């Protein structure tokens, strides 16, 4: 297969995944019981009653809630083809704009959390793997412990200790760098535990490989061996998981956003689902799916860079 065809195929497949995810969301939301017009009326009035058909008619008319499902879907797809994700029922703004405003803070948060998690995981692995019973035990316990932490709990404990008591960080830091430290840690600490577990497993395997012994006999220092030879191999599986982790972090972000009063896509998603804001929900899924796909393409690339064996396999 030529390189061009391969790339085209991969792109088409990726696009298919993205559109499929948005479509699934579209239909899943139609399956949710309850009337969208009724929800909107209640949202606009802060009530929780059943409105009459006459009261709901203008909204049904305006948003086409009464149209056959197929028509609604085709409308939606048609919009997608033109790069239009629709307009929010509640905020009256284009979905693209809603997401656009919230995407960057979310991406910064999750991206930074991923980086910090990596740094923590690698640091602890390098220091503690195969270092005698005590240190190793400490490292593994730390990883298993942090991997078991509920996000909310980490967030609120960090908040109370570092922002309220020690005043080291702002409580409502918004998107400022200093204010992002605690939200990032909230997401990064549990993730680091998880990545650490994966990396440690691999690290131990690699340390037993013959080439490591060879390197040592050549007089290379222990740290040198760990950094130059073992690390490169040991992080491969965790790199694979990073693409996945980015997607999962978007979900976890809502908690950090909520506690630290940070803007972001997680909170928008929760509100949109609650208010049956179908275009916004579908739009967010589309964007998150796209990020996931891109992240995985990047992971493939990173893989090739780290593991020379794969270069030939991937290259045309």
């Amino acid at each position, binding site marked *: 297969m030529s390189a061009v065809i391969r790339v085209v195929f991969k792109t088409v*497949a990726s696009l*298919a*995944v*993205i559109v*499929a*995810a948005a479509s*699934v*969301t579209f239909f*899943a*939301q139609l*399956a*949710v*019981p309850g009337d969208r017009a009724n929800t909107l009326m209640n949202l606009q009035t802060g009530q929780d009653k059943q409105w009459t058909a006459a009261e709901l008619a203008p909204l049904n008319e305006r948003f086409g809630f009464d149209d056959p499902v197929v028509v609604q879907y085709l409308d939606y797809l048609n919009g997608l083809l033109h790069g239009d994700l629709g307009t929010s029922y509640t905020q009256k703004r284009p979905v693209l704009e809603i997401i656009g405003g919230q995407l960057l803070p979310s991406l910064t948060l999750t991206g930074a959390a991923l980086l910090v998690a990596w740094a923590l995981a690698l640091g602890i692995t390098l220091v503690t793997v195969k270092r005698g*019973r*005590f240190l*190793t*035990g400490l490292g*593994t*316990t730390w990883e*298993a*412990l942090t*991997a*078991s932490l*509920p*996000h*909310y*709990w980490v967030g*609120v*404990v960090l908040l109370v200790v570092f922002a*309220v008591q020690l005043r080291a960080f702002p409580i409502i830091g918004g998107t400022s760098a200093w204010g992002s430290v605690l939200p990032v840690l909230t997401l990064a600490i*549990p993730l680091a535990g*998880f990545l650490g*577990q994966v990396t*440690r*497993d*691999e690290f*131990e*395997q690699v340390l037993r490989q013959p080439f490591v012994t060879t390197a040592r006999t050549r007089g290379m220092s222990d740290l040198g061996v760990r950094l130059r030879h073992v690390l490169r191999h040991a992080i491969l*599986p965790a790199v694979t*998981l990073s693409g*996945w*982790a980015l*997607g*999962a972090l*978007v*979900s*976890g972000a*809502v*908690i950090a956003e*909520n506690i630290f009063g940070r803007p972001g896509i*997680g909170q928008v*998603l*929760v509100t949109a*689902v609650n208010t049956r804001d179908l275009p916004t*929900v579908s739009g*967010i*899924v589309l964007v*998150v*799916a796209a990020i*996931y796909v891109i992240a995985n393409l990047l992971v493939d690339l990173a893989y090739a860079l780290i593991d020379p064996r794969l270069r030939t396999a991937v290259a045309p």
Partner: protein
Amino acid sequence: MTTIPLTTRPIRLPRPGTVVSLLVTGFVVVAALAPGLLTGDSPTAIDLTATLQAPSWQHPFGTDDAGRDLLVRVIYGARESLGLGLGATALAFAFAITLGFTAALAGGVVDAAITRVLEVAFAFPSLLLALLVIAVRGPSLATSIVAVGIGSAPGYARMIRGQVLAVRQAGFIEAATALGHGRLTVIRRHLFPNAMRPLVAVATLGVGQSIVWASALSFLGLGVAPPSSEWGALLDAGRLHITTSWWLEILPGVVIVLVALSVTSLGRTLQHRLGGAAR
């Protein structure tokens, strides 16, 4: 909120750790099966004269705003929390085994289709999945199980598919086939046990993760209905109290972490014993 597709190679915990893990897990299992053995009190018994009491001999975990004993509530919450962890993991595995085996064994178009579906499922934010499930069914224990279970299924499915493919290449399967054993017999007697063995440990780890996951749903007000003392719900109920009555937030958190940690480390020990890798 992380559904963690788990690693699979052994990590040695220090021995005392294993002992502690066994003790904690044993205690929780007893609490889940027969809470009455551990406490004579009711988890919903209110005492408006003894609200928000700090931990003491009488109330080792303190009391909440309704004067309910937090330790008793934690003990009675074990059944739902553990049930949630086990239920969600079982559900996830049911989905995953079906999809994973079908994909790996059928191959060709079916495999490609299932792989694509899994790809879409991965790209779907797990939070949204949970929100939609709850929007359809309303918040309850069963809903949480379904939401968490479905959310973690794709990861397991992918793992199982890989495992089946790997085992199928192994010599003993070829040997069994060569010996003239029927296809189903080979699957049932050789392929299934060998492919699943490493995943037993993975499942154990999933239980702990599911409990953690579910606490995130409680945070969003989408957890189990009160007066349940499912641990995630306790965590949510304690949040406003963290600066005034710390025990209501800190202690349930410690319990969740301790149990998840214990189950995880036991899973790893088990994995080590069973040997093998699932990747």
